[in-house]
């Protein structure tokens, strides 16, 4: 399975790299309404993934026969506030999370700083989770029994 994930990740990274989704200029052109490229990519991806997912869920089984399980995202006050904060970061860095890794692979040195920032940001979130939980109505931590 690890090889499958590596292969799918590599294919995903290659497409992001060659499509403009991991390109600082194309991200700004999207937000400046100067170029349709990124809107076309996201729109096409959703328009094709939606019916595909519907079929997979209707069939109810993976290729290997396991029951399809999809963990749904929770909606709370953090969804909107977090989305807005992420949008600021996406605009500044010209990268969303996947393209951070793709840009590093491409050899764009500055992307290493974006990764460092993202890890510190995520780390800070984890460190103050208990406080954020009550402010934003976030779900309780689901800890594995061994670590409880």
């Amino acid at each position, binding site marked *: 399975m690890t090889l499958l994930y590596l292969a799918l990740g590599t294919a995903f990274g290659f497409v992001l790299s060659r*499509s403009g989704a991991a390109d600082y200029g194309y991200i700004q052109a999207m937000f400046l309404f100067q170029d349709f490229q990124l809107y076309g990519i996201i729109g096409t991806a959703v328009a094709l993934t939606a019916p595909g997912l519907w079929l997979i869920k209707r069939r109810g089984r993976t290729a290997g026969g396991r029951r399809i399980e999809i963990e749904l995202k929770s909606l709370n006050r953090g969804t909107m506030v977090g989305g807005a904060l992420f949008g600021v970061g996406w605009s500044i860095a010209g990268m969303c999370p996947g393209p951070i890794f793709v840009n590093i692979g491409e050899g764009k040195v500055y992307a290493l700083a974006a990764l460092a920032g993202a890890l510190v940001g995520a780390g800070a979130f984890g460190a103050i989770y208990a406080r954020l939980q009550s402010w934003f109505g976030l779900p309780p931590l689901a800890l594995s029994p061994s670590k409880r």
Partner: protein
Amino acid sequence: MGLILTHMPPLHWAVAGAGIAAITLCLQWLANRRLGISSGFEDVCSFIFPVLYFQRSSVRSGRTWRLPFVIGLLMGGFLSAALSGGWTPTWELGMLDTLLGLSPSGKLAWMFVGGLFIGFGTRLAGGCTSGHGIFGLSNFELASLVATISFMASGIVTTQFLYRVVLHWQS
């Protein structure tokens, strides 16, 4: 307009979108995994920060697939560069270089600040462009619609302000 990496036009958007859809569906159909990349930050954090939040069962069980997937993203970027005239480290930033001309250390600081917002924001929102924007919207999840509208609107406002007001960019 060309890519910073290749100085060539990108793949057609319909081809790229179809490729992303195919990979997303493969992940779900072959491996029963929901596409999502920003949770990968938690996987990496779980090795670095001794915080209870990163010891959740979903992080511990997700590491086995998200870490190889993220390493794949690095390899995909590397392959793309290697196949387009060779891999070389670069500091090029396209239109930001034209308008602002930051030094390398300035670019590192710029990107670090952007990264802070990305890391904290995606964790608070519970996902990013992939988990909310592509998978969540395709799965008709209300949280994903809220998050996607929110980060698109905020990205538009930030870039419009930065480029039109601060940097005096003209189309």
